[in-house]
């Protein structure tokens, strides 16, 4: 009930125009990686997936933000089934990579934002290494680039009232770690794959 309402609200507020450019929706295991500029990002990607895919897909989000109040905690734990990770002080015991690998398991998919935090400029920030390690440890999983446009204008960083513009989501062609490909090479290729979805 709350879930349906949340999905409808997310779609309404974002006016999301969803384009599957490089692949079709599928329940196979995937990691959706996207640019990040708004608090709505994870919610909107998650809401735009067809229900069977949505039920298996878990957004990876910053623990410090999502445990601040009971409402966010409820949303993250009970509805989005978010994977809350420590982004400030990762330790051996509190390792985001281990959390993400555990969350993937053998049937789930993830939504991650490899830029690390929300960006205010329109340029993509360099991707963090986590994406590479995930790709290395799980060669069977598809890595789908996602470009989010306009959501940063709907609810920019530092604002709390949304303006109802039309956002858009583009899902690109899945990539995988090539044999012998290094960290820098893979991360740059991943970033280029997100960038390439602009105006295509």
């Amino acid at each position, binding site marked *: 009930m709350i879930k349906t309402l949340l999905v409808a609200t997310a779609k309404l507020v974002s006016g999301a125009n969803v384009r599957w450019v490089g692949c079709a929706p599928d329940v196979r295991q995937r990691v959706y990686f996207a640019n990040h500029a708004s608090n709505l990002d994870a919610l909107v990607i998650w809401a735009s997936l067809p229900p069977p895919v949505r039920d298996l897909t878990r957004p990876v989000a910053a623990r410090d933000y999502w445990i601040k109040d009971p409402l966010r905690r409820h949303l993250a734990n009970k509805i989005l089934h978010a994977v809350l990770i420590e982004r400030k002080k990762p330790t051996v015991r509190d390792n985001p990579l281990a959390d993400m690998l555990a969350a993937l398991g053998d049937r789930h998919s993830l939504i991650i934002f490899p830029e690390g935090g929300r960006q205010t400029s329109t340029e993509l920030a360099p991707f963090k290494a986590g994406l590479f390690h995930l790709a290395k440890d799980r060669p069977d999983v598809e890595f789908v680039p996602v470009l989010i446009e*306009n959501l940063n*204008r709907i609810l920019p960083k530092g*604002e709390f*009232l949304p*303006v109802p*513009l*039309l956002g858009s989501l583009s899902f690109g062609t899945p990539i995988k770690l090539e044999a012998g490909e290094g960290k820098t090479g893979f991360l740059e290729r991943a970033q280029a794959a997100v960038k390439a979805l602009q*105006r295509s």
Partner: protein
Amino acid sequence: MNLKLDKQTIWLVGGVLALLVVSSLIGWVLALRVTNEKSKATVQNLNARIRAWWMMVAVFGLAMATGGIGSVVLFGLTSFLALREFITLTPTRLGDHRSLFWVFFVILPLQYCLIAVKWYGLFSILIPVYVFLLLPIRSAAAGDCEKFLERTAKIQWGLMICVYCVSYVPALLSLDIPGYAGQNGKLMFYFVLIAQISDVLQYVWGKTLGRHKIAPAVSPNKTWEGFVGGVACATLIGAGLWWATPFTPWQSAGMSLAITFMGFGGGLVMSAIKRDRGVKDYGNLIEGHGGVMDRIDSLCFAAPVFFHLTRFFFT
């Protein structure tokens, strides 16, 4: 704002429904007969447009049936959707965020409230005077100077077209025309019908006989044949509907001519903006037509002119 369901209204509604039935039949026959790929796509788009017309007529009819307030709400929502499409295409910056919030959630509803209470003295100047002066102050206070004039001008322009101009359609209900009391619903119906049928007829003439393009760089679909044929037919239809209006047949022809000319101009201007922004349509809400803005461009330009002509000569 009580709208009576008189005999003339029934004729108008009946006429539109008959037209829809006939077009649906033609669309169905065409779909059976076309063979090559290019015409197939055209006919598919035509049938999508006709289906969307059924929807739009139903919504408009429902709004009219609820009396004045339904029309105010309908055009308020139309403004909201059109403005949403317009601002989405317009590059704004973080500094505009609070101003945009005001635009969507304060100014737009306020304009339609003023229309609902028929406060002509304020609804006719709210956006061109007060908002024009106050909104840049809000944006300047946000402290972002980059492309300031450009951003401010674009937001004001969006408000003028999508909110101010569109609000003149339900404002027709507030006109006090001697000998026409309680019948303004028909005037609004007449206006929307002529503006839209002119678009349709220009499309039909253009698709069947169109050869010479008027402004190929702006709108490849606008041809002289479509323009002349559409304007002439829509004006004739307008003249023939004089019995539903406060006008004589000649006056009605003149009014229809004004509506179709402004409507054509509106289509041209809104196309120029689309080409500049590199898109084909403003959105994808209405199947076959594109966005809301694509459907109401002619309405935006014609409504204020029709309102003021009627107000000047007939009240």
